[in-house]
């Protein structure tokens, strides 16, 4: 592939993924409201369009038309940059996540991931999500409001704490795969050799940490409404608020995609290759499998939010340092033992 074709292909990929992300995010909000309604024996949005399906567009329009308020005591530059960072992190992370195996289209071999060749692979994800902390810390500090500041501080403490166990959990996966490339990790989980089954402790640690990293209930202390009004985004309005809002749901998708990739076999459908079907049938099925797994996880995210109460802050820290961190260490030992006994594949 020459440079130009590569560039064109990547551009098309980026555009598709970005559009799909945006659309998914807006419908994720719709489903969040629908699922919460179902869980509470309500109807949920049902006025805009059939069954309320156009509600996300109404929401977006409303946010666009709202007055953009800049607090008087805010640090203006940082205040504006914060939601941009949040959005940037949310969207760029997606570059390394494969949604299917390589395909051949118009004579070109195209990997179904924007940047499959990045050597650091998963580490890239870790690096970017760490930057995400800045978005929240910046927004909290720059708003010039005590609620925002407290929300920001809580958030950074929480994210740093859980990033450690998350990193160790990933270490288990990397040990197993012997590579940081997501495509490789997925390929190694063929059959039922899903990492979720092989290293269940690591899976649980990672899922819990993912909830904490995305600030979803039961870990949404940065924006705990009863105590902090809106937390770090108290002083945000209009599209700047929408930025955080988008980023939160985009992060949810990324977290789910990561869980699917690292623990649930990515696009793999167990033993489909034994059926001997043509790749024209298998690959769309595999992409569908990825989407299905992703959807199920997103549902799980929302479902948990409307079922569990929020942790107290000390409980959150206890859980992070006294439970998740040791568990992740145990997981590494466990994985190392497996590798020692069965040898690296």
């Amino acid at each position: 592939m020459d440079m130009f074709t590569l560039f064109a292909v990547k551009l098309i990929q980026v555009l598709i993924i970005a559009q799909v992300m945006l659309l998914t995010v807006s419908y994720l909000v719709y489903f969040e409201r629908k699922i919460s309604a179902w869980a509470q024996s309500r109807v949920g949005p049902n006025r805009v369009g059939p069954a309320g399906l156009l509600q996300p567009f109404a929401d977006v329009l409303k946010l666009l038309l709202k007055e953009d308020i800049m607090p008087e005591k805010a640090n203006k530059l940082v205040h504006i940059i914060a939601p941009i960072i949040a959005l940037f992190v949310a969207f760029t992370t997606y570059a390394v996540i494969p949604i299917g195996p390589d395909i051949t289209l118009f004579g070109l071999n195209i990997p179904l991931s924007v940047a499959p060749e990045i050597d650091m692979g998963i580490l890239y994800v870790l690096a970017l999500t760490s930057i995400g902390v800045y978005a929240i810390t910046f927004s909290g500090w720059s708003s010039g409001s005590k609620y925002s500041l407290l929300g920001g501080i809580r958030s950074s403490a929480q994210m740093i704490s859980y990033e450690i166990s998350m990193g160790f959990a990933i270490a288990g996966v990397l040990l197993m795969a012997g590579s940081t490339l997501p495509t490789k990790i997925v390929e190694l989980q063929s059959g039922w050799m899903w990492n979720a089954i092989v290293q269940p402790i690591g899976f649980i640690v990672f899922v819990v940490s993912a909830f904490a990293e995305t600030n979803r209930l039961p870990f949404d202390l940065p924006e705990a409404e009863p105590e902090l009004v809106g937390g770090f985004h108290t002083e945000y309005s209009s599209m700047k608020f929408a930025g955080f809002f988008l980023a939160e749901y985009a992060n949810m998708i990324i977290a789910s995609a990561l869980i699917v990739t690292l623990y649930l076999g990515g696009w793999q459908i167990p033993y489909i290759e034994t059926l001997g079907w043509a790749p024209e049938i298998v690959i769309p099925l595999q992409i569908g499998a990825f989407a299905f797994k992703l959807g199920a996880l997103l549902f799980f995210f929302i479902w948990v939010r409307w079922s569990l109460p929020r942790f107290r802050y000390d409980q959150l820290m206890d859980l992070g340092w006294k439970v998740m961190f040791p568990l992740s260490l145990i997981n590494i030992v466990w994985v190392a033992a497996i590798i020692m006994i069965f040898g690296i594949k």
Partner: protein
Amino acid sequence: MAKKKRMKDLTLWERIYLPEVAKGLSITLQNMFRPAFTMEYPEVKFMPQGSYRGRPVLVLEEHGGERCVACGLCSRVCPALAIEIQAGETDREKERYPEKFEINMLRCIFCGLCEEVCPEEAIVMSKDYELAFTKREDAIYGKDKLLVPVAELQDRIEFLRSFK
């Protein structure tokens, strides 16, 4: 009531927390398949019982006059000072009547004290809950809006009598 459990009273199974999480999730999941309670308001309207305290109204007798004698007790007892009355003289048997009777619906808190204190059963809480206005002035209800025929208020009057 169940005895309050402390951290130290919890069994190991409970302390692991994950099973409890699963229990919680199963409850919400079950709920998702139950029918919704929601009443789709503008199309379907809530029909309150006699015990409902909607906006206060004045009883309009069958002969066309109000029951109210403008004694001023409702105005006096109103904790939100929503009621203003100007009495006047009539030739009717009860020589006093409200020349002006205004309730500021922005002030009204629907406590029903006016109804409770009324010696004539002349002001009662109706079932009307649709109270939207676009101007402060519109929120002041005069006699034209307050007088409601006694037949429409039968439910509430019966409810009040059953509790006397």
